[in-house]
C-alpha cells in the first residue's frame, strides 16, 4: 500500500472530435480527501473521472497522481480502482471471484488472494456471500460487491461513477453513508461523480461543480451553499430564489442592498455599487400573518402541506418567491396576505 495519494489536473482538455468535453481544467485533490465532481449531465464530470482512471486519455494537459505523471499511462498501469454506475460485476463469476479478480490477475499468491477478498467482503458487510452469483444479490448488495472489488486492491485513488443511481431513494441515503464511513476508515483518496447536489453535500470534503466542460466553482460544501460564485452554482446547489437587487453603497466589504422594499446589509463579495443578483434560500424567508417592522407585504399564491414543513409560493415586490416554512401549526391559507422578513443567514450576493 502506497498510502493516500494526491490527484492533480493541470490544464487538462479532452476533445471527442469537434466536441470539447473537458476544457482546460485544473484542480488538486488532497491525499485522503473525498472530492465530488458535481454537475448536470453532459458537463464533463464523468469524462474527468474516466481520465483519472485512464479509460480516456487527455488531449492536452497533465495528470499527476501521487507525484507521478500518469498522463500517458494506460488504465492497467495506474494504481486506481473504480466503482461503475452499473457496477459492472462479472456475471459469470461468483461474488468471491469478482472481488478476487484484481488480485488474481496481478498474480498475488492464492492464499493471500482468498484472505484479502474475504476481508474486503467482511468490510462491506457481505461476509458469507462469496459463493453467490451477482444475479442472486439485491441491488444494494451488488453495489457493495463493486465497492469491495475496488478497495481490495488498496488503490492510490478510488473512483465512484454515480454509484447510487441504480438504487432506490431510501437505500441511497444508507449506502452513501456507508461509502463515506468506509472511505474515512480506509483513508483512501476518493473522487466521486454525481449529479445529485444533496448527495454531494452529504459525502464530500470538497466539491468541484462543473458546468459546460469547465469548473464553475470549487470549495467545501458550506462554501458552495453559502457563497455561490455564480448564478449557476447558486441555482444548482440547493434551491435558491434569484432576484434582481441594487447595491446602494459598499463600505468595509459590506454592501447596502435594496431589493423590493427590503433593505439589507450583506458581505459585498467583491461587488460594486449598481445592479446585483441576490440569492435567497427558501428557508431564509420568514412569513408572518401580522404586519411588523421591516416587513414587506406579500400575497400567498399557493400553500402546500408536506408533513414536516409548509411550502409556499408568494408574490412579493421582489418577484415570485418560493418559501419553505417549518411552522406547520399555523399555516397561511392561499389567497391571504402575509408579511415577509429575511433571516440573517441564507441570503447572499452572487457575483455577476
Amino acid at each position, binding site marked *: 500500500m502506497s498510502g493516500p495519494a494526491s490527484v492533480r489536473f493541470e490544464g487538462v482538455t479532452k476533445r471527442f472530435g469537434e466536441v470539447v468535453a473537458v476544457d482546460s481544467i485544473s484542480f488538486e485533490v488532497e491525499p485522503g480527501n473525498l472530492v465530488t465532481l458535481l454537475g448536470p449531465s453532459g458537463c464533463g464530470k*464523468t469524462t474527468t473521472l474516466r481520465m483519472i*482512471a*485512464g*479509460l*480516456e486519455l487527455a488531449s492536452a494537459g497533465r495528470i499527476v497522481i501521487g507525484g507521478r505523471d500518469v498522463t500517458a499511462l*494506460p*488504465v*492497467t498501469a495506474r494504481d*486506481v*480502482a*473504480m466503482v*461503475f*454506475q*452499473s*457496477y*459492472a*460485476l*462479472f*456475471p*459469470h463469476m461468483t461474488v468471491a471471484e469478482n472481488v478476487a*479478480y*484484481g488480485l488474481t*490477475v*496481478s498474480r498475488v499468491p492464492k492464499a493471500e488472494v482468498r484472505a484479502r477478498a474475504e476481508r474486503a467482503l467482511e468490510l462491506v458487510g457481505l461476509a458469507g456471500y462469496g459463493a453467490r*452469483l*451477482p*444475479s442472486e444479490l439485491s*441491488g444494494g448488495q451488488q453495489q457493495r460487491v463493486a465497492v469491495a*472489488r*475496488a478497495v481490495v*486492491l488498496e488503490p492510490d485513488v478510488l*473512483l465512484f*461513477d454515480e454509484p447510487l*443511481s*441504480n438504487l432506490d431513494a431510501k437505500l441511497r441515503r444508507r449506502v452513501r453513508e456507508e461509502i463515506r464511513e468506509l472511505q474515512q476508515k480506509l483513508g483512501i483518496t476518493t473522487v466521486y461523480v454525481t449529479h445529485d447536489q444533496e448527495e454531494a453535500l452529504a459525502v464530500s470534503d470538497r466539491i468541484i461543480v462543473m458546468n459546460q466542460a469547465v469548473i464553475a466553482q470549487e470549495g467545501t460544501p458550506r462554501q458552495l451553499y453559502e457563497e455561490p460564485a455564480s448564478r449557476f452554482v447558486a441555482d444548482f446547489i440547493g434551491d435558491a430564489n434569484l432576484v434582481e437587487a441594487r447595491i446602494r453603497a459598499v463600505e468595509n466589504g459590506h454592501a447596502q442592498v435594496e431589493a423590493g422594499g427590503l433593505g439589507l446589509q450583506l458581505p459585498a463579495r467583491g461587488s460594486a455599487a449598481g445592479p446585483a443578483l441576490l440569492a435567497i434560500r427558501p428557508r431564509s424567508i420568514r412569513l408572518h400573518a401580522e404586519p411588523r417592522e421591516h416587513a414587506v407585504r406579500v400575497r400567498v399564491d399557493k400553500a402546500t402541506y408536506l408533513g414536516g414543513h409548509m411550502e409556499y409560493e408568494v408574490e412579493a415586490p421582489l418577484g415570485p418567491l418560493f418559501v419553505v416554512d417549518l411552522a406547520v401549526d399555523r399555516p397561511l391559507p392561499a389567497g391571504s396576505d402575509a408579511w415577509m422578513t429575511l433571516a440573517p443567514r441564507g441570503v447572499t450576493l452572487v457575483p455577476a
Partner: protein
Amino acid sequence: MAVTFSTAAARAGGSSLNRPLAAWLAVGWAAMLLLPWYMLDDGLFSFVWLADGYAGDRDYAPALFQVLWHERYWLAPLGLFLALPLMAVGRTDHARGTGMLLIAAGAGGLAWLLLQGFGIDHRGVSLALLEPLVPEGGRQYGMGWGASLVALAFLFLITQGLAARGLARGDVFVAGSIGLVVALVAAFIFFPVLTILSSALRDNEGALAPFLFLDKLLDGRIWGTACLTGGGRCGSAWNSLILAVLTGLSTTLLGLAFALVVTRTGFRAKRMLRTLTVLPIITPPFVIGLAIILLFGRSGAVTQFVADLLGLDAGRWVYGLPGILFAQTLAFTPIAFLVLIGVVEGVSPSMEEAAQTLRADPWTTFTTVSLPLMRPGLANAFLLGFIESLADFGNPLVLGGSYDVLATDIFFAIVGAQYDQGRAAVLAIVLLSFTLMAFWAQQRWLGRRSYATVSGKGDSGLPLQLPPALRRLCYLVVIPWATLTAVIYLMILFGGFVEFWGRDHTLTLRHYIHAFSVVEGEHGLVWSGAAWNSFWTTLQIAAISAVPTAVIGLLTAWLLVRQSFGFKRAFEFGTMLSFAIPGTIIGVSYILAFNVPPLELTGTGIILVISFVFRNMPVGVRAGIATMSQLDRSLDEASLTLRANSFTTVRKVILPLLRPAILAALVYSFVRAMTAISAVVFLVSANYEMATTYILGRVENGDYGLAIAYCSVLILVMLASIGLMQWVVGQRRLGRRAPSVTSAAEQTS
C-alpha cells in the same frame, strides 16, 4: 339456420363470450351444411363441385348429405356436438357452466372427428369400435373444406370454453390464438414426427415389427466403425457426427474471427464484411458444392493449376469429408458470424473497463471477461453450425463421394432403388436424437450462470480493442477467407456464361437461353425455357407460404412476449422445435403422415406450403420477439385500458408498430422457401416442381452450366426482394419522422 345465429349474436351485442362464439358456430354449421366435406381432387380453389352434382355426388357432398344420402352415418355425431353449444348462445349468466358446456362440446366433437378420421380411411374401417356405423364397403378420403372448418370450429369452442373458465385471464382472442398455434404445431410438427417413430417400429406393410426395428437401428451402415480399424467405411451416423462437430467448430471460430474484426478493430472494409451475412440466405443449395467441384475437383481450375505446377497427378481429394467440410464451412460461417456480431456487441463495455481498472491487461481482459461472456453466443453459433451441417443435404449429395451421411442416406432410402420407409424412419430418428442431444448439451454447458451483461442504467464505455497479437491472427484468418468467399461467388456468376466450366471457357448465353427463353408464339409470348415452369411454381409457392409464416410467427411471438399462461415454456419449446428438426426429417415425416386420410396432402401444393410455413415459422417468431421486446408493454396496456379488446389492440397498436418486422418475416420466409431443398425434395410432385429440385435434377445429369445459370437467377431474384424490402423499411422510418417535424413547425408558427 346460420342467419338465425347471427341475429342471436346481434342481440347478444357486446357480450365478449357470445359474438365470437356465434360466429364460429355459424362457420361450423355452414361447413357442415354447405361445403364439400372431403378433399377434392381438383384442388382447393376449384368450384367444379357446385356444377357437378354437389350434394348428390358421393365425393362432393357436405356432411349433412353424406349422412342422409351416402350412408356415411359416422359423421352424424358431429352434428350433435355442434348442436350442443346452441344452448349457450345468448346466455350471459353462469359463465363457468357455459364454459364447461363449450369445452365438452368442442372436445367431444374434435375427439370424434379424429376417431372417425383415423378409424375409417380409404381402405375401409380399421377400428372395431366404429364397425356398427359403417356399412359394407364404407370408406372415406382426406379432410376437405367442410371437415377442416368444422375442426376449427370445435377447436375454438374449446378455447372459448377455457377462456370462460379463466384461461389467459378470460381473453377469448388470446385463448383462441394459443389454441390455434398449439393445434397447428400438434398437427404439422408433432403428429408427423410421431408418425416417423411409429413407422420405424413397423415393417413396410404396416405390421408391428420391433425386431426389425432393432435390426435396422443397429445396422452396420449406420454405426459401422470399419474406417477406424483400417479399410472399409464408417457408418453414416459417425460420418454425420464427425462432420457436424468439425463444421460447428470451424464455423464458430471463423465466425468469431469475423465478428471480432468487425466490432473490435479499426478494419477498413467492415461494411463489406457485413454484407457476407446475407449470403447464406440467398444461396441456393448445391451452388457452393458445384463451385468447389469446378475449382478444386479433379478437373477444377485450381487443381489443374497446382497439378501442373508441382507435376502431381490431379486427385479426387475434394470428394468426401474434406470437400463437404469445406463447402459447409463456406456456407455456414456467415450464420455464425451473424449470431456472434450480436453477442460480441452485447458484451457491455463497462465489464471490460472494470477488468482493466482492476489491473488486467487487454489479453487477460479478453480471456477472463470478454470471452467467457460470449459463451452463450459461442454455444449458439456452434449449435447452429452443428444442426445445419447435420441437416445439410445439398453439399454431401454433390461432394460426398463415398462419404455417406444421414441426410443423404435418408433421401436414398426413400427415392432410391431399394425403397425402405422403415430404414428412412430409423435414420431420421438417429438424426433427430443427435440434434436433440446437441440442444441438451448446450443447456448443460451454459449451466446456471448468468451472462446478461446489460443491467440497470448503462455506462457509456468504450469497447475494448483487440490485443495486437489476436488482431493480427484475426486479420490473417478473415481476409483470405473473405476473399475466397468472394471468388467463389464471382465464379458462380461467371460459370453460367461459359460453355463448360473447367473444360471449355468459351463465353456463351446457351444456358440462359435454354432455361429462360421466351419466344413469340401465335397467342402472344410463350415461356419456352426449360426452367420457367419450376421458376413460377417456386415464386408462387414461396409467396403463398410467406403470408401464413409471418402471421403464425408473429402471433406466436406476441403470445410469448406479451401474454402469460401456465404452459408457456412448453409452448415455446413446441414452436421452436421445428427449427431443431432437420428438413430431411420434416420431408420424410410429411410423406409418411400425410399420404393417407384424414390429412391427405401428398402431391399437392398445400403440403409444400405447409412444410415451408412450419420450417420457417421460428424465423418469424424470432423476428417478432426481437421487435416486440423493444415495444413498451404499456402501449398494449394503455390500449386495453382504453376499452379496446386484445384483437383490436393487436390490429391497431401492435401491427402498425411491427410493420418492419412483418415485412422482414414475409421476405425472409419467401427467400428461405426459394432455397429450401432438404424437405422439399421429398414433397415435390409432377405438378409442383420447385426450382431447387429442378436444379438437383440438372446436377445429377452433370448439366452444371444450366444449374449454375439457374442459381444465379435465383440469387438475383432474392437479392432484389431483400433490397426492395430494405428500401421500403428505410422509407417507412423516414415517413415516421416527417409528421413530428410538421407538428413542431405548426407549434412554432
